[in-house]
């Protein structure tokens, strides 16, 4: 962000090229953050102008995976918003299990997997990890591999542990990872029941039905039109009376299908599908 700036016309050229050549559609991404991601790529790869970035995208197909990785925001933490995770443990999940023996969960936009591990730890502490079928998806192949690997920097683990303590987990956070060569290596048995898949929320089709969808701080990178479209797919991907969770400062108020959900917990942004 330091030296360069980029005009909207150049951003449009980039989204058009990517759409045409790679079939990914970023035209309805929120411009404010998309612009900064592009500037970040230009800085990282030392592209002095938008033209140079466009040329590389045109000429070098292998560069595109890296491009996708940098465009998507992959900053997250375990048990982000600890009060939300308490709500999940104390109310949402017990409610789902009133009527079912199993629970199906979709992490839509799972990034580097912190939320998936948080969920697995929560379920394990509730004694129901083996009853859960979890699917975790992301648009970014590179980050999915990272999520599957479950290696995190020890520096991040300090914050994760603080969140876990605020979440009032039953155990000791250190039980869930070991330190190896300065990295935290997560207990892989936690994600035995997790299926990681590449999936684009924008162009991907509805592929399953779930009791619970977590899509927190993912749609903030979309404009309102796109949020609407994605929310329709989320609605379709939920069983009736299933739950949708979004980020603490996101809202369903403006979306077309808001009336098909009720608010279960406004502070933690937990919604329940009440109409097909």
């Amino acid at each position, binding site marked *: 962000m330091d030296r360069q700036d980029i005009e909207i016309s150049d951003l449009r050229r980039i989204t058009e090229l990517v759409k045409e050549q790679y079939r990914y559609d970023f035209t309805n991404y929120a411009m404010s953050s998309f612009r900064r991601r592009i500037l970040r790529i230009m800085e990282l790869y030392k592209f002095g102008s938008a033209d140079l970035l466009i040329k590389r995208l045109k000429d070098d197909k292998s560069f595109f995976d890296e491009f996708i990785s940098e465009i998507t925001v992959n900053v997250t933490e375990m048990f*982000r918003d600890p009060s939300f995770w308490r709500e999940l443990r104390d109310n949402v999940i017990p409610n789902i299990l009133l009527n079912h023996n199993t629970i199906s969960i979709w992490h839509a936009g799972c990034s580097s997997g912190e939320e998936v591990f948080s969920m697995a730890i929560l379920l394990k502490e509730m004694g129901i990890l083996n009853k859960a079928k979890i699917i975790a998806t992301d648009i970014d192949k590179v980050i999915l591999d990272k999520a599957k690997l479950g290696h995190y920097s020890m520096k991040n683990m300090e914050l994760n542990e603080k969140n876990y303590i605020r979440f009032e987990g039953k155990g000791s956070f250190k039980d869930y990872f070991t330190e190896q060569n300065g990295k935290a290596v997560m207990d892989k048995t936690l994600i035995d029941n997790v299926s990681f898949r590449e999936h684009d929320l924008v162009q991907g089709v509805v592929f399953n039905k779930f009791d619970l969808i977590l899509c927190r701080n993912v749609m903030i990178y979309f404009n309102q039109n796109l949020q609407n479209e994605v929310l329709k797919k989320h609605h379709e991907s939920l069983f009736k009376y299933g739950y949708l969770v979004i980020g603490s400062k996101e809202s369903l108020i403006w979306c077309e299908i808001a009336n098909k959900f009720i608010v279960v917990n406004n502070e933690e942004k937990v919604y329940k599908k009440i109409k097909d």
Partner: protein
Amino acid sequence: MSRFNLDNKYKAIVIGGSAGSFQGITQILSALPADFSLPIILCLHRLKHVRNGFVEALSIKSIKPVVEPYDKEGIKKGKVYLAPANYHLCIELGNTFSLSTEEMYNNSRPSIDITLDTAAYTFKDKLIGILLSGANRDGALGMKRIKDRGGLTIIQDPEECMIDTMPNAAKNLTEIDYTLKVKEIIQFLVELDKLYFK
């Protein structure tokens, strides 16, 4: 005659602050006319993991309630907005807010630079940026972006600041239109407001 070169072209005011800015902010928010016209967007450094309390503390003294906007909420006249904890607050084309959880910038989330930069990109020369007391360099680049796009830049007088690093960093990076004490910032805003038909 006003000592300020005032203009009613402005569409928004963005205020950045960090260590030592809370008092200045509450003074400003308590002294504005109750029907102040322009939206005021606050980006203040705050504890990342404390979601509640701050907006309430600001609201107590303020002439109108301070709100933390939701993602894609429209920016409305006469409202006071505060960047929520652990999110960057961006201004989107089409005058809505957009939130982001991307990397910390200047060790901060919310980062003042990001709010100022995106506001400058959207409002161009119709933006006023005000930078108050603070202990790091966040906001300096954002003030430069405002100036580069033709907006107006104001810093709190470093002499008055509890910690003057932030306004000084901005002064060293870009042209500052006015260096003012909090009382003068209030005077500026009150006089500016008179130019807007109610």
